[in-house]
């Protein structure tokens, strides 16, 4: 793999992990209070 391929791969993996973390964090925060209700 050349340098460009390595940079693209690393950036893609890092951004993807950040996105997954953001999705989890947002859903956790939004549902924390709602889960206390009965619906």
């Amino acid at each position, binding site marked *: 793999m050349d340098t*460009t391929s390595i940079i*693209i791969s690393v*950036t*893609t993996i*890092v951004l993807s992990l950040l996105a997954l973390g953001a*999705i989890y964090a*947002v*859903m956790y925060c939004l549902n924390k209070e*709602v889960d206390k209700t009965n619906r």
Partner: protein
Amino acid sequence: MHVIPESWSHLHILVSLFPLVGLLFVLGFYAASIVTNNDGLKRICLLIIVGLGVLSIPTYISGMSSIMPVSERAGVTEGLINSHYNWSLYALLILVLAAAAAGYEWMRSQNTGRPSANAIHLVLGLSLITLFLMSAAGESGWEINHQELGLSPVANAVSGLPSGSDIPEGQGTPQAWSHFHIILNHFPSIGLVIGLFFLITAIVTDNDVMKRASLVLFTICGILGVPTYVTGASSMWALTDPPMENISQAAINAHRDMALWTLFGLAATGVSAWVEIWRYRYLNRFSARSLYVTLGFAIITLGLIAETGHRGGQINHPEIRTEPLPTDADAYLSPNIELLINNVQWFVPWQTLHFFGYCLIFGTVAAVVLRVFGIWKSMPFSAIHRILPLGVMGVVMNVFTGMLMLLADTFRYVNSNAFPPKMAFIVIGGCAVLYFSLSEKLWNTKAGEEAPMQAKWVAGITLLAWAGVIAGGRLIPYV
């Protein structure tokens, strides 16, 4: 910020939009008050219609005082000015009648707190006539100052293409996009002003219907931010390729930079508003803290949009310029983001996140649609409602990443035949999500019950719209 008008023409441009776009939004609230039979909201709407009627005075005076400076511009004929004057005069007269009827009914209902149905319908009818006449007045006004809208795409208009574009010669960007942008950009700006007024009044009077209607308006403004930004990019190409006299690329870039911040502001306001609409279902109350967060976002975004509008007005309104236009087109953020994102090392990672966003949206839509169509009937709709934020998060991810991808090659994107339907489908799909968040009948669909027929139609349209968004995006490089 430049919100203080420095000439009659400047004042006319600012104030004349309220009796048109402002009235449209107020009628939205008015309709909500009639449907929910909320007397408090009805009376507030009557009061605002009175306010819009009062605004007809500065609109008329500033319009009359603008005739001289505008008529000095090349191509502005007496016929164009007379047409705008006549439509505006009729519109303002009917608006004054609507305002008088609204003011009378507001005063009459002060003791009982209940406006009469006849008066409410009279004001509604007069307002609708005003809206029709104002649309004609607005259109004839834009024809005065934006004569470029009548131009056809120039045959050799692709001389200055960025690298990677393969649009054949003879296909310049149509001026229809500039026309569309001029109309569309006033909706988020005036919508924010009207929404802020209603939200502050709703918090003060503790009116839940008004709070909800304000949050819906902020969400709609957030959705409209996307086509407004995109049609702005199209307008840039229509005005600069080939270059037009008196159109400065530097002035356009100054406008684009602020438009970018406004897009983020509209997204933050729209999403925070929608989240509170969603949470209300479970908590049965609005959280004061969340409402203040939305209010804060809306106020900041209003500041950004005011500056964006001012910079946009500088592009093609020489009669309101008080300072020289910028000259260095490269001294702005947008051209530098274009250079950066054009590099494959940045484009591919952000495109990956764009696909993540699509998966979130389509997965959420599929789950909602399947329940509404009758599959998973053992689940109440409220259970499916819980996953809506996942889809909205996908939309937010894709607005951000899609905007970056658009900046990589705006000419190619905006001139692709697949791009306009994609943008239209985004607006339709976004508004459909509002339906799933607001429908009382759907929310009350219990386990084992059939969803209402209306919801099935909306579900079908939503599925087709988001499928169209994905298909349109994939077709961009080829059609």
